[in-house]
């Protein structure tokens, strides 16, 4: 990867390429400085890490550079288990050393600007990276102020914990939960579709309830929803009734559940039709869109998400940029880690077809399984297999679906197994990203 470095005084605006020698570029595991093709991956999460690793294993002659601001990766999945008191932050934090050992050049910086025409990305620190192909997996941004009063400052009082980041959001939320006054009210504001991780808010409700049942059994959870239905709803509501009694109240949009304003000073959630709800703990999951780097590059449409070719994930708006993960328009595929991981591989075969001479996977199949922990030894899941169509994606008919429903007296074995399988999924998928 040719790279303009700070020490050689090249910055945005100067525009002069300086090819660095193998010595100055030396990072552990980097095989050759000038290799056959340069793949740049922006975003080191479920999509980006999977893409970088797959590329290094299957296309050893292609140089792969990964740009990710976080020096280690905190997964959003399983963050809810921290709330439930079943995991620690260290359990969901992953090192990039494995990718380095595979020869990925990992740069910890924030990608700031994409020059699609010029095939280069500028980093916040000033470096400029040239690419032949770009895999862009930047995740989501939160629409600040879409809920009146919910801006970045507000998220320190009412955490969203809707990205892993440096782990501070989920640990703050956990601390607030532990400090909840006896009999206190946990308020949650849940957005309308589409948003990252459709079952996520409901697993969160479950894990909060699991904690409260032991630590603060008279506390209440008010889940305000901007929708009238949600993923695995029947299963979740059955579990809540079986495990948590009347601790949880879910208020759908049609019953004035849409929160449109928050007041962090007075600790209020205010609904669409003006009902004020006092909360002792407020978890606000605001509406979302593609991360800024994708939108600023003109890749997103009016919805705020990036439309892509369903076979290659190349952005409709720019050549040689493949957008994977939550940032793209993938409906009906959910915005999930497994989809990001699954589609990453197809995107890499498509991106590297020209460079490598190896054909892209021309008949791709995309895969998702989302496990949710509704309680201890109580796992539920949804699975789906998708295929590209001429203008989008479609779920394969008569397949996939959710776990079978039924009371614990009949289903306890199934629920226990799915909880174990969920743990195995987490270990396997993070291996597929970082090992």
């Amino acid at each position, binding site marked *: 990867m040719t790279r303009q470095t700070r020490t050689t005084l090249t910055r945005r605006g100067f525009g002069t390429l300086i090819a660095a020698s193998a010595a100055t570029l030396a990072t552990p595991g980097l095989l050759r400085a000038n290799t056959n093709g340069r793949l740049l991956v922006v975003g080191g999460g479920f999509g980006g890490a999977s893409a970088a690793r797959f590329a290094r294993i299957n296309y050893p002659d292609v140089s792969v550079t990964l740009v990710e601001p976080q020096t280690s990766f905190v997964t959003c999945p399983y963050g809810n288990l921290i709330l439930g008191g079943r995991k620690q932050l260290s359990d969901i934090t992953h090192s990039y050393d494995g990718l380095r050992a595979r020869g990925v050049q990992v740069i910890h910086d924030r990608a700031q600007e994409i020059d699609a025409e010029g095939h280069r990305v500028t980093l916040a620190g000033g470096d400029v990276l040239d690419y032949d192909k770009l895999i862009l997996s930047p995740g989501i941004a939160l629409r600040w102020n879409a809920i009146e009063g919910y801006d970045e400052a507000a998220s320190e009082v009412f955490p969203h914990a809707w990205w892993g980041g440096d782990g501070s959001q989920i640990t703050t939320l956990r601390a607030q939960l532990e400090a909840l006054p006896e009999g206190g009210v946990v308020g949650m504001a849940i957005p309308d579709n589409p948003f990252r991780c459709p079952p996520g808010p409901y697993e969160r409700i479950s894990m909060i309830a699991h904690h409260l049942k032991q630590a603060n059994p008279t506390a209440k959870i008010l889940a305000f929803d901007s929708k009238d239905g949600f993923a695995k709803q029947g299963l979740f509501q059955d579990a809540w009734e079986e495990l948590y009694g009347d601790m949880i109240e879910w208020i759908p949009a049609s019953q004035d559940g849409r929160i449109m304003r928050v007041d962090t000073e007075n600790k209020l959630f205010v609904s669409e039709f003006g009902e004020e709800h006092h909360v002792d703990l407020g978890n606000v999951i605001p509406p979302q869109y593609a991360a800024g780097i994708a939108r600023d590059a003109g890749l997103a449409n009016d919805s705020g998400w990036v439309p892509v070719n369903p076979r290659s994930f190349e952005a409709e708006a720019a050549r040689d940029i493949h957008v994977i993960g939550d940032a793209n328009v993938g409906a009906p595929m959910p915005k999930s880690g497994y989809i990001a*991981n699954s589609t990453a591989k197809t995107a890499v075969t498509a991106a590297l077809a020209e460079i490598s001479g190896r054909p892209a996977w021309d008949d791709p*199949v995309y895969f998702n399984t989302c496990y949710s922990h509704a309680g201890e030894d109580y796992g539920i899941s949804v699975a789906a297999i998708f295929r590209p169509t001429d203008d989008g994606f479609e779920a394969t008919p008569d397949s996939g679906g959710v776990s079978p429903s039924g009371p614990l007296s009949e289903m306890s074995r199934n629920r226990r197994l799915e909880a174990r399988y969920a743990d195995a*999924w987490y*270990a396997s998928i993070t291996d597929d990203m970082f090992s």
Partner: protein
Amino acid sequence: MRTRLLLPTTLALAMAAWPAVAQPDGPMLAEACAGCHGQAGAGQGAISDLRGYDRDAFLLVWAEFAADERPATIMNRIARGYTEADVEALADFFSSLE
């Protein structure tokens, strides 16, 4: 004849010669399995090891899952998402792994 070389997610090589007509790509299909069944299907915790799975047994068990004739939590729902040709390719792939 075009030789396609795609490494599975271990150091073991799976080489296949593909004709010009599209055939399901076993290694690429199997990539999705790694998210639960581990690298190269080696298994993980409670989820089974698929390496060296007898080819005929793979096809038989898959068909049973798809028909809800075998106890399953999730594999029945997943099995129904793949064509017969897909499953043959997966059986070829996993049976070839050590």
